[in-house]
């Protein structure tokens, strides 16, 4: 393999992994607060249509980048109201959210179908981006790639190094005690769910503005579900979310690479490989019961109804 081909391969792996990472890091915070939101796919696809629409109508994918967050966040507010305030079943509501998002985005995006999109600007530092091999990889990415890493660092820092993180984890582990201590369980969860929604929206925006700059229905193609699995895979630790997302992205792309080279491995097997590798890694990680028990939010998916 030439250096140029290797570089292209790494760049492709980064584009394939970034949307997974963005959506997964948001869901990680949501689950850490004790809420299971299965609607990631729906929020992502709303983010994709909102981001594309905003970029198209304003002509600037950067200025209006907040809108794609809003697309996902708005849907997540609906989820929060239903599950947190009205105590609806989280699993059913999350699934409904996905279906709603897929339908709604199709409706909202109808007028964008067939319109060439606006591409998200790439970071370009003259001198650094021109460096051989590492230049384009380190300094020439879409802005959201850097945002995804910044988010992981920020989430890691907040969750494990700040008082806010302690409160979020307390709410997720034992909402009764957190409530007794005077923390506003519902308010904390509202905040986390909206953060998750914004991240999912950002991830969708990455798909429609950087990955394949266009709007088409269902363009998330199941990536929200993979992001959900990655959160469990990572045993709710931010660093492992990065590892998981990039492992999944890399195995997917390598599957294509191996096919292109023409090594006689069945294509169906290669398609299944990312899932198999992820499951395999999950099994290995889960063998350490202490780590799993220490990190799994104990109140995950449980509704909280304070005594009045």
């Amino acid at each position, binding site marked *: 393999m030439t250096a*140029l*081909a290797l570089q*292209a*391969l790494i*760049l*492709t792996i980064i*584009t*394939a992994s970034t*949307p997974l990472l963005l959506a997964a890091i948001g869901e990680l915070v949501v689950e850490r607060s004790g809420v299971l939101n299965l609607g990631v796919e729906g929020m992502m696809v709303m983010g994709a249509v909102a981001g594309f629409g905003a970029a198209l109508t304003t002509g600037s994918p950067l200025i209006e980048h907040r809108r794609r967050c809003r697309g996902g966040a708005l849907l997540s507010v609906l989820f929060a109201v239903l599950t947190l305030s009205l105590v609806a079943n989280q699993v059913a509501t999350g699934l409904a959210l996905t279906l709603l998002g897929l339908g709604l985005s*199709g409706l909202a*995006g*109808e007028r964008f*179908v*067939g319109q*060439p999109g606006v591409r998200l600007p790439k970071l370009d530092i003259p001198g650094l981006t021109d460096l051989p091999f590492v230049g384009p990889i380190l300094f020439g990415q879409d802005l959201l790639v850097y945002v995804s890493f910044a988010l992981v660092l920020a989430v890691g820092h907040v969750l494990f190094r700040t008082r806010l993180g302690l409160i979020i984890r307390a709410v997720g582990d034992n909402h009764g005690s957190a409530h007794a201590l005077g923390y506003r369980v519902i308010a904390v969860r509202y905040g986390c769910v909206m953060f998750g929604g914004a991240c999912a929206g950002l991830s969708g925006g990455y*798909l429609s503005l950087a*990955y*394949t*700059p*266009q709007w*088409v*229905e*269902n*363009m998330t*193609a199941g*990536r929200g579900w993979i992001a959900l699995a990655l959160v469990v895979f990572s045993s709710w630790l931010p660093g492992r979310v990065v590892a998981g997302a990039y492992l999944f992205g890399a195995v*997917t*792309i390598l599957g*294509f*690479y191996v*096919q*292109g*080279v*023409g090594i*006689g491995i*069945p*294509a*169906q097997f*290669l*398609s299944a490989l990312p899932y198999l590798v992820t499951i395999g890694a999950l099994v290995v990680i889960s063998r350490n019961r202490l780590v799993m028990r220490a990190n799994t939010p104990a109140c995950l998916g449980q509704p909280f109804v304070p005594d009045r």
Partner: protein
Amino acid sequence: MKKLATLAAALAVGLMSGAAHAADKLKAAWVYVGPVGDFGYSYQHDLGRKAVEKALGDKVQTTYVENVPEGPDAERAIERLARDGNKIIFTTSFGFMDPTIKVAKKYPDVKFEHATGYKRADNVATYSARFYEGRYVIGQIAGKMSKTNTVGYIVSFPIPEVVSGINAFMLGAQSVNPNIKVKIVWVNSWYDPGKEADAAKVLISQGADIMVQHTDSTAPLQVAQEKNILGFGQSSDMAKFAPKAQITAITDDWDGYYIDRVKAVLDGTWKSKDTWDGMKEGMVVLPPIANVPDDVKKMAEETAAKIKAGTLKPFGGTITKQDGTTVKDLDDGAILSMNWYVKGIDDKLPQ
């Protein structure tokens, strides 16, 4: 007495006018595997549906269901349409074959039309286009235009339609360039823009300078444009998405067929049959050729004319299979059940 009956009938018609009028309309339905906005396969079928509405106007009422996954969901979608009073239902993807046959058994009064399949019944007709004819022509263009002698070919599922497409492409390419190589990547999806784009990027990094796809989104062609290489559209003219990259596309034109078949139901002449038309009948169309020198364009147009005239058959003559054995002048049955590669393709066919 007779007069009275006529009068009563006239009165009834007059009274029911509005409602009766709507009920008189023939209901026709379409089932798509992707979104109508894919600007590829499903989009093209939907153009056919619109053509039916335009041609037959008040006599028909059409509906469609998009994004129907192949499998059990398809059966439910088709059955719902049958129950809703649709008299003719077009199911447009290979994976809808068994569900269509199953539902058709339950609703003998409804006519079904299944695209790209091979199972028929008294009320199930099949239709498909000879996509491979178009693929032979683009193979020739690719053979002439590739500088690296490497073509990237993104494919969905190993079904005969796709395999015969690859083979026809290769035969066309070999007819002008014996050194041509085709790199094949199966993405196991008809429609996933992200994966298709990834596959395209990987193929380009491996030296492909021509992009061919048998998947439905415009993503591979957009990647081709971004990386300054050439490619071909699939199912629909995708020039709008990649004006600098698209040479031509293999476009399906279902308009005429759909109008004929719905008309046949209206006239009561509908019969189950198998239709497999190609470039000659206008079911497979190549949009104007662009981004290539005049001599290549001329060669492609001549080849297309020969195929239309029937003097050139992509699977005519002696063909050497990948394993070295030879076959001669393939008939339709052999093309429709093709599960082997021609010589020169170094991919292993997924079984």
